[in-house]
């Protein structure tokens, strides 16, 4: 069932990203992501580090995906302690990602970008419409909300595991399902990363 839910969710995200692509194709010019996303926490903004911060976010999410698989693998082996350990690591990874995103949003908001406000000019120097920031905040916000609910699900799984529910049940299928959701969030991020930061 999880797979079918994820399919429907994939189509939701797909619709968002495709509408982003359509609007971008219908615009004569578009803000340069390398100009918009160039800041890094605790570094001078003059340093101009495009893509570095978002690559770090990608790394964090992939890393937490790995610990999630390891938790699922430990669940298959019936190793409750290892499941706990890897679930905690996954939750920490999720919170790190959310923290990074919160910082990025705060930074962009500080630069004057928000829904309906876009201070960044187009590549060719002309004034950009608000489409860019609208899509950016909506889609990363929707994704961030998925990450947040994923963290909540993972915390519930961790508590159930600590209480020994899965051990009594004899299988760790719930961990596996939470894992599927978590990987899906990672998968969506791969596409968001490409669409907003690279293209």
């Amino acid at each position, binding site marked *: 069932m999880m797979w079918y839910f994820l399919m429907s969710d994939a189509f939701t995200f*797909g619709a968002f990203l495709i509408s982003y*692509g*359509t609007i971008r194709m219908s615009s*004569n010019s578009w803000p340069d992501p390398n100009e918009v996303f160039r800041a890094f926490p605790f570094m001078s903004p003059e340093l101009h580090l495009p893509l570095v911060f978002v690559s770090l976010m990608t790394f964090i999410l992939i890393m937490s995906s790995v610990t999630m*698989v390891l938790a699922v693998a430990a669940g298959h082996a019936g190793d409750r302690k290892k499941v706990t350990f890897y679930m905690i690591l996954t939750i920490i990874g999720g919170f790190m990602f959310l923290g990074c995103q919160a910082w990025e949003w705060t930074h962009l908001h500080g630069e004057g970008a928000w829904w309906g406000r876009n*201070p960044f000019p187009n590549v060719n120097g*002309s004034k950009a419409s608000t489409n860019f920031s609208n899509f950016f905040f909506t889609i990363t916000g929707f994704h961030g909300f998925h990450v947040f609910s994923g963290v909540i699900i993972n915390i519930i799984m961790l508590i159930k595991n600590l209480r020994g529910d899965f051990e009594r049940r004899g299988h760790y299928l719930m961990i596996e399902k939470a894992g599927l959701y978590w990987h899906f969030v990672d998968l969506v991020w*791969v596409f968001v990363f490409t669409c907003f930061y690279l293209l």
Partner: protein
Amino acid sequence: MSNQATTHDTTHGPAAHGSGHAASFDTKPIWRTFWILLGITMVELLLATIHLKTGFPNKYVLNGVYLILTCAKAFYIIAEFMHLRHEIKNLIMTIAIPACLFIWFIIAFLTDGNSFRVLRDRYDPYHVEQNTIKVAPAGGEEGPAGKEQTPPAQKPGEQQ
């Protein structure tokens, strides 16, 4: 991508199938997948940096490369992390076939967006003019710059 997939199948596939479901959760392929994903991301970052510094790979070529690399990453996440590769064929098909709709969606909608742009450029002078108005580069205060921008943006509309 398909090449790597087949080599993977020959090295790990039979072993995983031989010893049952549990054994397919080997931690080795997980870490290998992690390194592949990390490597692809690093390559993307490197290409973007080279492009920024030298402008060497054409932006359109680069976008194609990005798309291919993204699909490769998606393939590895779905196949290995989400474990779809080791599921029964029917489940793989119920996922893979609807996902193919995306190919059609993307082509159809992007073409549509592009044709909308072409039409507006042809029939809407205001749309073209908007694109030629330069804004003062960022660095100045945003508030006044935005106010200065509004009058010229309205003038062409009044003239119409």
